[in-house]
């Protein structure tokens, strides 16, 4: 990724975070997470990490096998 793309991504990130603060809230109807302006940024970031590590540890634990696992004999 070149510098221009990183810059664009950074701008998009900042705009989306700003958008979180700018979203009007109706505290009577909103779910609890909507009251946190950066909730979905955290959700995306930590959700992604959670999925990666959960899946990979399952794989290490018992799910990943060699290519010839089913044809071994």
């Amino acid at each position, binding site marked *: 990724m070149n510098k221009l793309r990183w810059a664009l991504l950074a701008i998009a990130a900042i705009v989306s975070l700003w*958008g979180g603060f700018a*979203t009007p809230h109706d505290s009577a109807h909103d779910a609890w997470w909507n009251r946190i302006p950066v909730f979905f940024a955290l959700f*995306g970031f930590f959700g992604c990490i959670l999925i990666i590590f959960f*899946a990979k540890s399952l*794989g290490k634990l018992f799910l990943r096998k060699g290519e010839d696992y089913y044809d071994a004999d």
Partner: protein
Amino acid sequence: MPIDATFPPALVMLAGALLLPLLPRNYRSYFSLFIPLIALVLVWLAPSGVNLTLELMDYKLVVYKVDRLSRIFGTIFALITLIGALFAFHVKEAAKQTATLLYAAGALGVTFAGDLITLFVFWELMSLPSTYLIWARGVRESEKAGMRYLMFHVFGGGLLFAGILLHAGETGGILIEQLTDRNALSSWLILAGVAVNAAVVPLHAWIADAYPKATVTGAVFLSALTTKTAVYVLLRMFPGWEILIFLGVLMALYGVVFAVLANDIREILAYHIISQVGYMVAGAGIGTELAVNGATAHAFSHILYKALLFMGAGAVLHTTGKSKLTELGGLAKKQPLILWLYMIGAFSISGFPLFNGFISKSMVVAAAGEANYPFAMLLMLLASVGTFLSVGIKLPYFTWYGENRGLIPLPPPRNMYLGMAAASFFCLLHGIMPGLLYDMLPYTVHFAPYTFSHVVETSQILIFTFAAFWIFRKRLAGEAGITLDVDWFYRRPARWVQRVFVEDLETAFNKVETLSMDIVGKLSLLSKNPTLIFTKSGGKYFSPDTYRPAIQTLILLVLFSFVLISFWGLLSHLLAVTK
């Protein structure tokens, strides 16, 4: 029967499938485009209501019934057959083309069936042609996977048929209607039969097993038809069954987790079918108007972008002969057009604004919120994080970027680009103009996807998912090997079953056979001379002579008695003389 607007599109496909092998080789590809086009036009022209009924013994079969729900599903099935045929235009084998049309005929027949018997007939019609599309790859592993696929679907069909028979017995009717009786065994059997085709966890293993081993073009049709006809039947017969919410959310996450582990690019996509169909199953489970609309819209969008993704992955396989992340890399400069067309599908499935996934997935998520299932809503959003992670970033990153392995791809047939471009067109069209899709949905839509908060929410999720990927990208590189899934339960024991029921049984039979032959032999030997039991003498075979005085002895005895008699005669004579 003249062809008019009430002619069933499934029969057009069926007739096309039967005619196609008779045509000259060079016309077949055009014909395979022409037939789905006619079917598409017929779906659009058909008047709503019952258009064709048949009498079968005491039952009245409703073969062709059109309403808003079946029309939108019929539209997308015919459309994707057309687009897929464009992608497969270079394929000249009549068997593959015929199988495709038969398969599509089955899907359209299920969609427009008004009764359970018609539904079952077309349901079963799908299974064999779809199996052929797996076998047609022609390698040993696709042969074996195809057989497992077929057996799984025969099992599912059996469940469905048992359910239909029970249902007909209980209610006396065979018309397709919403099933509401949660205590009837028949409902659960039908649900289980449909769940097999919808790849509902834990009945899903066939999809990740077989789809990556199908032909390049066949996988496109497979990804579109089987699971979505099942979603259609769920929406038709099981709206509001709460268990489907749980199962749908489970599917959405399950597919995501397993896709992270997969190494084959088409296996990643197959796991994401499970994940995406999970949204639709959950939508059926919620069962409100918004949820049914959302599930229908998502099925429509999903068929387009998933076919596009399978076309992109298929094009890579077709041009390089490789489909594993560990063997791919550095293709971005060599096939930029395939990459960009693939990325349109990837942005769509990830739910980027301006792509069709955004306007349909969000309907299901919103329906979960509206029906007061906030937890389901959050978990579906989590699944969409995983979708972007695997299909949107990991797969293209390691296929087209990543380590350059010096692959030199062949140029793909031009029609592949055309097929991908057609699917991309609809992905963008509905993303930009959601009204075009919303107007076809079964209920009136009161849902606006492009609100400020929704766009912000989606952007935050996507941007920060990418950030997390970039930090941990090294951990996500493909690893050689396979992932165990619930297919372990019938693939691993296969060797034990083989050992116990075939090899051990054969050994046992052989042993018993040898033993009994041995006993028979010994008994027969014994019967030749039973006296052996009592005496050790007499030789191997019984001979009466052994126990009979020899003839010499007899003659001797006779002669001796003559001698005796004559001696006594002589003696008595002498005594008489001397007296």
